[in-house]
């Protein structure tokens, strides 16, 4: 592990958070004075630097600083929202007036309102999310050059889309008229590289990226470029497959989308609209016995770690799936009330899901072992398109990857689709690997599905 990052600890983020909190409380106070029975405010400030280097030269240098605040007011059961990126007093005044004006036209919704006051978080542990990176333009260019050059050195690489280096910090406050004020600060930094491998007239592009809370966690910069190059080169000579049914192994970067579809199908909005293929499935099996999925909101440096959700409700560690059985839904207070249930602290989404490694045989396997276990089938490394219906579970997406025989990769594959119904795809899960991808808030290894339909020639 090498460390080139220049880290600062002293900053004015605490004072800036105090200013945002003061603004939020003032806006709530004024909304109440205007007649709102309840009000909530989100306010944020973020800033960053993004540099792209292509073929050794700087291509773009972008600085960003974004501000904004959004207000929701309730007049009894009537709701109105307004937001602005302009924090001047006159604009704030106009935004409050707008939200109140809208609430005069919306209709009483018996389920509308803030989450219950008793559920507000009172304990705000430090989740180690704040690691600003004092990245200057020259240093970012230097890193980008190193990353791209390492990848470009690969024999098969003929062109480049460049290397990107980004550093960013965000401060946010959520406050509501229960008196809750929650402060959050977090940094996110990334380094990416996208390269093109050529062979005759054929070109293949692939890349790699790293995404971290703390720049010290980046691996050696040249390794990112080399990995991007290896991935692009491995796709050269890709063929179509004939139409068939076979096992499919999703690598972690795409496996997490399957878990994302599960979350979508058990989320409050899909359930109360009856727009899910997993209605009324709490307490029922949705995955094979060996599968365990736990939400872990307090993971230090986790990409979605938070001690309170988008409504101020205290988050907590809790199982979503245990022995394949769905333990609960993913709810905010509005959908919970509509379903006659209690919020699960998921307004705004899940806060890190850990998918435990395992298999139908009881053992856990790494990627190479999973290949052997699959024997003959398809490894999917990329999915394109949007052919997934959460209403019916029907699934049909474009895919690229590798054909595997006797546990070994034989050739790259492209221009095929994989299809099935998510209900069956979930129940056909044979194994979840130990090769966990840490760059996401859904922490899963590769996922082996017993059988899907491949459409090709």
């Amino acid at each position: 592990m090498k460390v080139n990052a220049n880290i600062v600890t002293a900053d004015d983020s605490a004072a800036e958070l105090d200013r945002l909190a003061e603004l939020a409380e003032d806006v709530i106070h004024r909304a109440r004075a205007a007649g709102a029975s309840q009000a909530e405010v989100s306010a944020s400030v973020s800033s960053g630097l993004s540099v792209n280097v292509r073929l050794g030269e700087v291509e773009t240098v972008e600085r960003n600083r974004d501000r904004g605040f959004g207000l929701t007011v309730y007049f009894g059961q009537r709701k109105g929202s307004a937001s602005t990126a302009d924090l001047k007093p006159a604009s704030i005044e106009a935004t409050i007036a707008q939200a109140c004006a809208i609430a005069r036209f919306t209709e009483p919704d018996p389920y509308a309102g803030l989450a219950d006051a008793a559920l507000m978080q009172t304990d705000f542990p430090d989740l180690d999310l704040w690691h600003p990176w004092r990245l200057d333009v020259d240093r970012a260019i230097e890193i980008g050059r190193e990353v791209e050059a390492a990848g470009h050195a690969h024999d098969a690489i003929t062109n480049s889309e460049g290397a990107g280096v980004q550093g960013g910090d965000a401060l946010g406050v959520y406050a509501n008229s229960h008196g809750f004020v929650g402060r959050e600060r977090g940094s996110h930094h990334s380094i990416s590289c996208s390269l093109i491998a050529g062979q005759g007239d054929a070109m293949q592009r692939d890349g790699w990226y790293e995404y971290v809370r703390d720049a010290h966690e980046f691996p050696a910069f040249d390794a990112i470029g080399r990995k991007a190059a290896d991935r692009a080169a491995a796709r050269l000579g890709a063929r179509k497959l004939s139409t068939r049914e076979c096992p499919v192994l999703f690598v972690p970067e795409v496996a997490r989308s399957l878990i994302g579809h599960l979350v979508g199908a058990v989320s409050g909005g899909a359930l109360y609209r009856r727009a899910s293929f997993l209605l009324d499935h709490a307490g029922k099996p949705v995955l094979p016995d060996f599968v365990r999925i736990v939400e872990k909101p307090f993971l230090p440096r986790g990409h979605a770690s938070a001690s309170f959700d988008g409504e101020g409700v205290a988050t907590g560690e809790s199982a979503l799936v245990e022995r394949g059985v769905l333990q609960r839904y993913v709810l905010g207070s509005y959908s919970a009330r509509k379903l006659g249930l209690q919020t699960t602290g998921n307004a705004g989404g899940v806060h890190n899901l850990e998918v435990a490694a395992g298999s139908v045989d009881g053992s856990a396997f790494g990627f190479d072992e999973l290949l052997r276990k699959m024997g003959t089938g398809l490894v999917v490394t990329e999915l394109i398109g949007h052919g997934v219906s959460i209403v019916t579970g029907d699934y049909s997406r474009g895919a690229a990857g590798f054909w595997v025989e006797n546990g070994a990769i034989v050739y790259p594959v492209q221009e095929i689709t994989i299809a099935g119904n998510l209900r069956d795809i979930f129940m056909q899960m044979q194994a979840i690997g130990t090769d966990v991808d840490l760059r996401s808030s859904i922490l899963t290894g590769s996922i082996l599905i017993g059988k899907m339909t491949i459409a090709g020639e």
Partner: protein
Amino acid sequence: MDSPLALAERSLLAPGGLSTHDLERVFSRVMAPSIDAADLYFQHSRSESWVLEDGIVRDGSHSIEQGVGVRAVSGDKTGFAYSDDIVLPQLLEAASSARAIARDGNGAGKPLAVRGTRALYPADNPIDGMDNAAKIALLRELDALARSLDSRIKQVIVSVNATHDSVLIAAADGTLAADVRPLTRVNVQVIAEQNGRRESGYSGGGGRCAYRELIESGRAHGWAREAVRQALLNLDAVDAPAGTMDVVLGPGWPGVLLHEAIGHGLEGDFNRKGTSAFAGRMGDKVAADGVTVVDDGTLPGRRGSLSIDDEGTPTHCTTLIENGRLVGYMQDKHNARLMGMAPTGNGRRESFAHLPMPRMTNTYMLAGEHDPAEIIASVERGLYAVNFGGGQVDITNGKFVFSANEAYLIEHGRITRPVKGATLIGSGPDVLTRVAMLGNDLKLDEGVGVCGKEGQSVPVGVGMPTTKITAMTVGGTQAGVGNG
């Protein structure tokens, strides 16, 4: 009626005490001998949305965004910064930041000169153009209509939204231009339920027009009927076939095929960098005889249309493929300059906080001569796909997908059963060479397209006539059904 420039100066520059003279001062800060181009993009944007769900107009929201983006270009290097405060000190600071890519020096831009533009849409604000009570009434009407059409409709979600965008563009090449852009949209989504099976239906549309236009033309009510029709149809759909077969695409929105299969691959940036599967293929035969595809930003009132692009260039109707041959790319100023070509009015950006790049406007294929019924009758066994969700393309290897959400089997020249949605996959440089028949029924979409590229979203349009493509891969679940 004031010109867009007068309107934009009043809403964008005057509140911060700025005049166009001050903008020339900013350019003198940006320009240096090594700076080839620079521009300022001022924007003020207001938007609203109203949502009805479970029979209740339960949510309404309003937002305001404004700011200025400053860009400086030196060779193929671009420096960019923005500020959400439109006042001189912030503007000068952003200018210094953007020009950091160049060495020191002093220069000046050309004097700013106003460019006359034709207006393709009214400057009126659609948000204020209809009172809130009328918007609520529309939502309720569409909800009641959808529910009245069939008792199997269990859920209806209707939303309307509108944006009013004022932009002012000043560039060191002397460009001074402004545009005031309305955009409205109506969406209807329904869930139908029968014997425990649930299906959804969606329809919607809009354009650069007032809400009233969508209502008085009967289009809004038509979308409610259409959403219901689709959901009910899907209740009876059987599994889609898997494999390679002839595909007939219906007219209109299936034009998303063109957007994915060839549109992105013909954007100037990818071709300058040589990363597109179409790079270096100008003049080549890339489609069957008779296939002509254009990108046309000049259609009045269309969702993808612009009077001027986001660099102040008037939009064009650019021919991309003419009678099967590749003849044009879509360009912004930056890529056009580096490639020694002319800008085509395709320089677009999501907002002041984003860099412009070559983007599509309304992309469509011209009509052919065949009666659509004749096209269906020519297919022994295949798929008739009339409605699509989204698509995606890898511009480097050219592979693209797009997903049907309304499709039918064609058996012995007749449309038989509806089938479930399936993803269609193909190769951009290849698919149009297999266009076998073109209908005489060119149609543009209803106005729902959103295109994403490098994290930036912009509204677009597509269109095509009924089109037969031989041997496309259809990604259903029923292996063996379509191969016969």
